[in-house]
């Protein structure tokens, strides 16, 4: 898909003007019908890399969705009491137990990293290389510290005797679902950190400005890549919002 194609499609889309009429529900629905029935590229004005990232995210939504539904099912069907997350994940601070303290900190760290990522995308499109580099670096540091805290949390629980098949407080499925769901999420964060570091290097050395071909794919560098990576990172944060609500608070 060349640049010329992109400009061609956008001619019929009035979103660039972003007028009130163009954003009305009726106009949006009409435009959607036209997009899907055009016998051409459906996702107009969306770079293909971003459309593919959305397709990947959609598949990941199903994976995490099925994990959480499995968790719901074993929790409903368990005849033994479910361990109280507020007590299990409490931290001792100055002789007092604060419920979910570590989890709360992890939540704030991940939300902060989402914020810095959003800003990195914004400054990327503004061609502000220094700001984008620093924000991407900060995002990866926050992500890495999240993984570190999760490793600490796992260590603590394993020391407490939590196993995928048993735990001291109640339903055995607690450990199985905990390790599976948070482990899968942690793996996503870890891979995200890896890609963030790669993207930081790309931005810092100017590969995106110079449209330098990538090492693995040979794709020309551009700042839409930062947005696609941003989508992945926000999705990881999004999943944590659901895990936080359903696993730790419910």
């Amino acid at each position, binding site marked *: 898909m060349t640049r010329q194609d992109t400009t061609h499609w956008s001619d019929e889309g009035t979103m660039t003007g972003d007028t009130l009429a163009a954003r009305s529900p009726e106009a949006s629905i009409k435009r959607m019908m036209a997009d899907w029935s055009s016998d051409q590229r459906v996702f107009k004005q969306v770079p293909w890399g971003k459309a593919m990232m959305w397709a990947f995210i959609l598949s990941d939504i199903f994976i995490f*969705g099925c994990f959480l539904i499995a968790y719901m099912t074993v929790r409903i069907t368990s005849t033994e009491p479910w361990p109280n997350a507020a007590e299990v994940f409490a931290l001792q601070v100055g002789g007092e137990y604060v419920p979910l303290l570590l989890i709360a900190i992890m939540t704030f760290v991940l939300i902060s990293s989402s914020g810095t990522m959003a800003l990195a995308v914004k400054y990327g499109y503004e061609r502000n290389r220094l700001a984008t580099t620093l924000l991407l670096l900060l995002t990866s540091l926050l992500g890495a510290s999240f993984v570190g805290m999760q490793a600490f949390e796992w260590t603590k629980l394993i020391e407490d005797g939590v196993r995928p098949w048993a735990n001291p407080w109640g339903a055995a499925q607690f450990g199985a679902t905990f390790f599976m769901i948070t482990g899968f999420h942690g793996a996503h964060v870890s891979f995200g950190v890896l890609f963030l570091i790669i993207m930081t290097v790309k931005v810092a050395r100017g590969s995106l400005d110079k449209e330098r071909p990538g090492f693995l794919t040979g794709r020309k560098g551009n700042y839409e890549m930062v947005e696609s990576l941003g989508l992945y990172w*926000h999705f990881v944060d999004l999943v944590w919002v659901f895990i936080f*609500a359903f696993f730790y608070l419910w």
Partner: protein
Amino acid sequence: MAHEEGQQHPLSTYLWVWLLLFVLSVLSYLVDYVGFEGYLKWFLITLFMLLKAGLIMAVFMHMVWERLAIVLAVLVPPGALLFLMLLMAIEGEYVLSSRLELFFQ
């Protein structure tokens, strides 16, 4: 060519959403800290969760500024998950009741 610059939005929008996400996280943490129980707790947790998820999707992932074609392509399929959740909740209740009946008389 301006549209090729991709998604560009004012800094204040991002900062406001960021702040809101923090506030909503504090609120959902407080639900646990204060010790609400039952339906009130579940309602508040779900409410704050959906608000946070909505803000992240809409603003950070730029969904409000995308064309409906891709917005619906992403948001409609997960409806199948909601249906699966409903089915498994019904099935789960049945499994629990038969376990209680058959194994714990």
